Structures are given as C-alpha cells and as structure tokens.
C-alpha cells in the first residue's frame, strides 16, 4: 500500500489504481508474420524483475487514464512517473 502521484490528479491512495503490468511491450507490427515462439514471448513472457521495473498503471477510480511508473519491486519505492508516449527516464 502506497501513495501514487497520478500525473493528472496528483497524489492519491494506491487503492484507486489498477496495476497494468510490464511497460513498453510493443504490440507486434505485423501479427500475421509472427511465429508461435514470438507470440508466446509477446503474450506471456515477463521480466518480473526484483528491483527497478518499468510498469503501466491505470487510475481506475479517478481520471481513468493510463500512465507509466518506474518502481523498485524489492521495496515498493516509486522512482519516477511519466505519461504514456513520453520517453522513459534513464535508469
């Protein structure tokens, strides 16, 4: 349980948010060309990092907008928050 600084609404309780998993997984540009292995990689395989991880979050019970977060999963410390489409901060 922690506070999240929504880039649109400001600091709110984590209860209002929905975690959307790993960020920057690009949707295949040509899905018909993909092999089964590549589909598995895109759909299921995750880094699941213990440490600094890039994630998507949604302010589900607020503005309902998506944004990105850099968070240390070993202590839940939020390092950075940035909007969709913005460049991820260097880590």
């Amino acid at each position, binding site marked *: 349980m922690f506070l999240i600084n929504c880039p649109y609404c400001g600091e709110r309780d984590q209860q209002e948010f929905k*975690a959307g998993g790993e960020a920057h997984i690009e949707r295949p540009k040509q899905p018909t060309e993909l092999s089964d292995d590549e589909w*598995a990689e895109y759909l*299921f395989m995750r*880094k*699941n990092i213990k440490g600094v991880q890039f994630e998507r979050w949604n302010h589900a019970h607020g503005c309902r907008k998506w944004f990105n977060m850099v968070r240390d*999963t070993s202590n839940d410390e939020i390092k950075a928050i940035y909007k969709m489409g913005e460049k991820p901060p260097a880590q």
Partner: protein
Amino acid sequence: MRNKYSVFSLIKNALSYHENWQRAWKDPAPKKEYDAIIVGGGGHGLATAYYLAKKHNMNNIAVVEKGWIGGGNTGRNTTIIRSNYLWDASAGLYDHALKIWEGLSQELNYNVMFSQRGVMNLAHNLQDVRDLKRRTHANRLNGIDAVYLSTEEVKKFCPIINTSPDIRYPVLGGTLQRRAGTARHDAVAWGYARGADAMGVDIIQNCEVKGIKRNGDSVEGIETTKGFIKTKKVGVVAAGHSSVIANMAGLRLPLESKPLQALVSEPVKPIIDTVVMSNAVHAYVSQSDKGELVIGAGTDDYVSYTQKGSHQIVEGTLNAILELYPIFSRMRMLRQWGGIVDICPDASPILSKTSIKGLYFNCGWGTGGFKATPGSGDLFAHTIANDEPHKLNAAFNLNRFVSGDLVDEHGAAAVAH
C-alpha cells in the same frame, strides 16, 4: 545412521531431559561438485531432493537455500490440501500428491499432522452453483471424491456459517471433498529435510545463488555466496524468486510475482473442524491445532517482492469472513504476513525442462502450492533424473505457452487471482 522416532526413543530421551536428541539434519559445507543441485530449500525443493535420493538413487546431491529451510512460502501458507481441480491434467497432478500425503507421516517417520478434516467450497451465485456442480462431476469422473451440498447440508456440516438468505452474498450450496484437509507446514519441510539428509543429501542453508554458469546450452554449475559449485543438473524450486534465477540463466518465464497475505487470530477453543473456502467473496478459514483461526487473503495486483501486501486486501477478506461467520466479530487478529507467489497466466504450475540442458524449473504454483508438495517433489525428481517429464506432469511444461495448450485452472482456484 538416523535414529528412528518412536515411543521408545521418546521415553529414552525423556530420561536425559530431552537434551541428547540427534540432530535432524547436518549442516555441511558445500562440496566442489554434485550430480544435481536443487535451488530452494522449501517443501517442494526438499521433497524433490528426497525423491531423487530415494527413487532414483541420486545421493550425491545438494539443496541450497538462501535463508533457512522452510522459511519462505512453506512457512507462510495456510496449509490447505485438496485435489478437487477441474481439468484432467490438474486432477492427476494434485490427486497424486494427496495420495502421497495419506501415507507421508509413516513414510518419513515424522508426524506431518495430516488431518483429513474435509474442504468445503461455497457457492454464492447461480454461476457458482453451475461451476461447482460441473466440477463435482468432473472430479468424480477422475476418481476424486466430491459431493455437492445444498444450503441446509452446508449448514449441517459447518453450523457457524451464516446461511441466512438476506446476506449480501447468500450461501446457495457448496462442494465437499472429505479426503482433503490440512497438514503442519513446518513439519513437512523438516520431515523431508531429515529424510533426505539421512540418504546423504547435503542441505546447505544461508547459501544464496548468485549466478548460473553455462557452457553454451548446458549448465556447468552455480555461483553462490559460498563459492562456485560444479554440477550438470540444476533444479530450480524458488517460488516467488523463480524469475530472478531464470534471469541469471538468460531465460524469461511467464510469471508475475505478487504478495499473497494470510493472517491468524488469537487462539480459541475448537469452533470450526473443517476448512471452508469461498472464491466469490474471497474468504477462507480453518483452525490450527493451537486454536488460531487461519485466514487466507488475496494477492495484490502489482509485482512486488516485499512480503507485505496492502491493507485493503486484508480488510476485504475480513469483511467477507464477518458476514459469513458473525460469531467471529469480536476475534482479535494476532499476526499478518505476506509471501511472494509466482503466478502463471493459466494459474497452473510449471514442472519442466528448459531450452538449457540440465536446467529444470518447478514454479508457477501461485497461491496454491503447499497442497502439492509431495507430488511436486516426486514428479520433479522424475523429470530431473530421467531428463523427461513423468506422464502426470507432461502437460505442465513450459512449451504450453508456445503451443497454446494451457491448463486453465482459474475456475478451480480456491480464491480468485
């Protein structure tokens, strides 16, 4: 030679004030090389080592554990054992484990306090009723004991449940597996450790894996905080930290690690003599032999390795518990904790070879691995020893995420995740 525990050894040791009991397992330094190394000294890892030594004559093996044995999820779960899963593959896997549980204390000469007190799963809406009836039929076709109960039968089996029709999520029925129950989680780890140690397995605690050494596509050994150990076979049984070990070997797994919480109340006199689980309202409860209510809460929806979890998850579970069991309204909770569970997209485990020769993974048990401990160890030992899965774990391979042949057990999970 390991001394046998018996009433005679109890009397003999009582005469010397219980000060001369033999150590249950040694505390060896790692050798330079082993035939196989198990990473992770929880129940599943220790059981794997035990069956490798016992059934496959692999005695020159080690279990490395970064903390102390049984200090991870083995000591953090709610100790529930059942096998009433929907799909054939899961039914085979979990009932294999349940059958081993039934003779485990005798086999290990260690009382794991397996208690077949029954597990009841409740239905709270019409879809639950249809799903649980279907599951009852599927279980019976697979030779697994299951009965469907009406609301009145639920009340008769567990009288403290509030079956009033005017609660928010009324009890419309339930299923009962009488062979299901609970066991003492610490004893399972200790019993397997003692059994494995007696057959020559080295159990190395406080030894964290820092790297997997590869030569091309084969495993050569592991780097640990106690130095490099050579081996050609590594079986990883690291639960929530499976992805961390996989990343060391350059692999990615279809896992997300999340905190799952549980809590216990102050101890009280016997009040609930079975296990009651409810998926729809997310509440399950049983009572330990010490008298504590053992309550399982849910997972958080974000990846975290903090072993904490969010407060609102506990609050939601306790709301549901209080509506179902008004008699608990003045109970005080004693302790709350979290464990890190590794969840697969299809809520089924992985017991599998990998693309790297000699590297095996046993992971993805998610929120319900404890019940499978003996079966998981037995089948994973088979997979490592023969470099081929047993027919009971063949469906639980890593390749199912490529082929699409998933074992979708979300519906048979005791609680939603």
